[in-house]
């Protein structure tokens, strides 16, 4: 056990002790103390991660002969990158959590459980990135899902939160089942739990195991694989969770699914099987579908957090496209393509965790101020919380991939890769790639529609319903995480080359003979130009604002009611609402979407009560691919209700019937 391991062990033990102490600290200091524990974990884990990214990975073997065999702890560049993302989001999430949970000061036990789970959740995510022993990986994976489920049901007195938590638990269990099958199959082939043993897998076994593990990880990532809806837990779990938890979960826990897929692509000798290119195409197609599906459903949602949750599916689609492109590049061994693909995937994981978590924190502020997230009853919040509004706008721009921000950079690299691919691929490949480009552009457009609606309806215009009196104020507690994230978003947007340089180490893992100079020449120089463009955009707009100020500050500026064609009754109810804003889209996308409309018509000529019109967006895939099979199974199970009906005669009859049945079966040689 070399000295690094000695250093690791006390860290883990100290953290577990720390988390126990949280329960004892009295309420006011509890959140702060827990945050200090989190910070210590962040520091402790970032050091090896940065050293791994800088090029020398860490490997520790722990012996446990009976159950696990030897447990390798490896921190290589890929896990280093993901550890940094986790730590960053945990820092901002934890800080925001302190502010957010002030309102729950009176529920002491609930708070201490919450913060202990937060520490366990953080530790389990780090261990998932680090552990390379199959069985222990499964245990860490499940602890992660379990602790996140318990974090989600923080407001457990609401029945729908419990239902969402339970739905989430079962879906995560399915993910573990798939992973268990994969690991068990792996063990059968190679007699050892060590992931790196997957190298000697023989050809026949690679594909089924890869598919099993891929499905398991895709569950957590929230892919929508055509007829296998793995994403349905996202839109239920996120609205139910408190904002800082949903921020952390969608910011980083989904990425652990992506990490799993990347780790598998790294470990499984797919190139040996020759299927790598086809797998790449499948992943690309699937991610495009889930990207489109995610954003198409996000647009028609009424609940702000549900909208953001569906949007996470879209961004996972974009990351998936990067991975798919990378695999295709590896398949036809075109280094530029694979570098572009994996670089865009890795960078987009960082970008998404930045802007998605700040969007959720902003949604948390909205919830604190308006006690509701229903878009139909929000509006005009800009006055009440200008900082949050502007930072929400900044993240919304970033998520749509618009230039001066980080979303644009990863999509730019992806576009570069897709175009490069279409140049060299076979005709059919070129056609498919162009279709992906068109899809990606359409996703960009749809994202813009979705976020103009979200930002415009929530923050601008007049309030659609009177705001409940709430003593919540915009303070440093709930703004600093947003500012930190926005600062990073802008920094990556303006100076992409410095950040993409970090990616060279993880990329070297993926691309076999990866020469750094090629990477610098092709990708980094181009990004230098891009940074000149984005900086130019920012400079020009600032100059224009300066000119505008010089020209207009002397002229008279008056304020008057909005132009209403002469109608000057209150405009609150005349404003465009969220549903009306996307009505044209809903008509266009009607076949894909499932929207229930309740329409109360005027019963008689002179109507007494008012006419109401309600729409409830449903997830079409979830409705008929999950709900219908479940209640079919339910009905099938209820046929067998008669067994335990209390009569002694029947109880004895079952014994005889069983005897007779087995006699018949063995007589007819069936058994």
């Amino acid at each position, binding site marked *: 056990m070399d000295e690094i391991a000695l250093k690791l062990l006390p860290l883990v033990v100290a953290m577990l002790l720390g988390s126990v102490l949280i329960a004892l600290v009295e309420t006011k200091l509890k959140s702060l103390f827990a945050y200090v524990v989190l910070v210590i974990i962040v520091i402790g884990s970032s050091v090896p991660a940065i050293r791994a990214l800088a090029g020398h990975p860490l490997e520790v073997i722990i012996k446990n002969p009976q159950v696990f065999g030897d447990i390798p702890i490896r921190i290589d560049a890929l896990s280093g990158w993901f550890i940094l993302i986790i730590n960053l989001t945990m820092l901002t999430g934890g800080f925001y959590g302190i502010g957010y949970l002030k309102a729950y000061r009176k529920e002491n036990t609930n708070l201490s459980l919450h913060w202990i789970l937060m520490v366990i959740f953080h530790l389990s995510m780090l261990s998932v990135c680090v552990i390379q022993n199959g069985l222990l990986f499964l245990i860490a994976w499940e602890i992660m899902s379990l602790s996140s489920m318990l974090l989600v049901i923080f407001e457990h007195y609401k029945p729908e939160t419990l239902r969402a938590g339970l739905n989430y638990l079962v879906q995560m269990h399915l993910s573990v089942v798939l992973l268990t099958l994969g690991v068990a199959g792996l063990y059968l082939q190679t007699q050892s739990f060590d992931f790196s043993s997957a190298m000697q897998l023989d050809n026949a076994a690679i594909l089924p195991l890869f598919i099993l593990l891929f499905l398991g990880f895709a569950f957590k990532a929230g892919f929508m694989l055509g007829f296998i809806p793995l994403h349905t837990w996202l839109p239920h779990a996120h609205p139910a969770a408190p904002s800082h938890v949903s921020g952390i979960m969608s910011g980083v826990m989904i990425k652990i699914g992506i990490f799993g897929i990347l780790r598998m692509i790294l470990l499984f000798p797919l190139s040996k099987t020759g299927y790598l290119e086809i797998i790449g195409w499948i992943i690309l197609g699937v991610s495009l579908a889930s990207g489109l599906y995610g954003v198409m459903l996000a647009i028609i949602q009424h609940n702000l957090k549900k909208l953001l949750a569906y949007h996470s599916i879209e961004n996972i689609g974009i990351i998936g496209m990067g991975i798919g492109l990378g695999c295709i590049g590896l398949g036809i061994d075109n280094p530029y393509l694979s570098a572009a693909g994996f670089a865009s995937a890795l960078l987009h994981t960082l970008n998404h965790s930045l802007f998605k978590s700040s969007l959720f924190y902003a949604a948390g502020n909205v919830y604190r101020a308006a006690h509701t997230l229903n878009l139909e009853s929000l509006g005009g919040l800009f006055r009440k919380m200008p900082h949050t509004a502007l930072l929400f706008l900044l993240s919304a721009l970033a998520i749509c991939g618009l230039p001066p921000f980080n979303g644009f950079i990863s999509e730019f690299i992806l576009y570069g890769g897709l175009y490069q691919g279409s140049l060299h691929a076979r005709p059919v490949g070129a056609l498919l790639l162009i279709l992906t480009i068109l899809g990606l552009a359409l996703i960009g457009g749809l994202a813009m529609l979705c976020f103009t609606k979200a930002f415009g309806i929530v923050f601008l215009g007049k309030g659609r319903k009177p705001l409940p009196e709430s003593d919540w104020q915009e303070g440093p507690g709930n703004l600093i995480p947003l500012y930190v994230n926005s600062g990073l978003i802008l920094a990556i947007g303006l100076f992409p080359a410095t950040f993409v340089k970090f990616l060279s180490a993880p990329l070297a893992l993926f691309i076999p003979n990866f020469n750094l100079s090629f990477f610098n020449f092709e990708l980094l120089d181009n990004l230098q130009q891009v940074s000149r463009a984005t900086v130019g955009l920012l400079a020009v707009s600032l100059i224009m604002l300066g000119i505008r100020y010089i020209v207009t500050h002397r002229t008279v500026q008056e304020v008057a009611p909005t132009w209403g064609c002469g109608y000057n009754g209150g405009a609150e109810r005349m404003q465009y609402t969220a549903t009306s804003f996307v009505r044209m889209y809903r008509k266009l996308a009607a076949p894909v979407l499932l929207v229930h409309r309740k329409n109360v018509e005027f019963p008689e000529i002179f109507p007494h009560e008012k006419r109401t019109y309600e729409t409830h967006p449903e997830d079409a895939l979830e409705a008929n691919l999950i709900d219908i099979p479940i209640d079919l199974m339910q009905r099938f199970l209820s046929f067998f*209700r008669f067994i*335990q*009906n*209390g*009569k*002694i*005669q029947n109880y*004895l*009859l079952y014994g*005889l019937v069983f005897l007779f049945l087995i006699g018949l079966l063995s007589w007819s040689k069936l058994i």
Partner: protein
Amino acid sequence: MKAIILILFAISLLNISISNRLRGFARLLTLQGFLLFVLAFIQLNEVTILNLVFVLLETLVFKTIVLPLFLDYVIKKNRITRETEPYVPYFVSLLIVTVIILASFIIVQQIEGLSGNTLFFIVALSTIFTGLYIIISRKKLITHLMGYVVVENGVFILSLAIGNEMPMMVNTGILIDLFIGVLVMGIFVNKIGDVFQEANNEYLSQIRD
């Protein structure tokens, strides 16, 4: 000689299936107990005093004298009405018992390599299955108890068929267990009798899902 007794035993089975009065049922049980005694007496060739006393005690005393008295006591104490109230009409249960006897006959024929006493097996198997059938098809609690005794008689015949191999001590240990079972059940029927006026099965199915 053994064959005649076994045939008599089979006839008593048929009568049990159509006995509509509890008293008739109890008297048939006594007959079965007596037949068992004669059968055991003939079957046991190595007659040691201990064995003889034990078998005598077990069949003659318990099955033919103590058990019927105990059953009458329970019937009188709980004022159980005399009908055996089966779910299935008597005629049909008669058919079923005959089918059971035929079936066990066919099964025993199927198995080759039986050392001579095939009739023992036929009667034993049919007694066990008839006993189970009676339990399943009767509503009243007391008939369950009686059905259980019939099953026990079947087991006793089976153990006689191969009795001399089984060490006597183990064999008797088992039979004692069965008798204790019957006694405890009888006590329970009394307890149930006190709580539920009419001790049949409608009351006894509250615990269900």
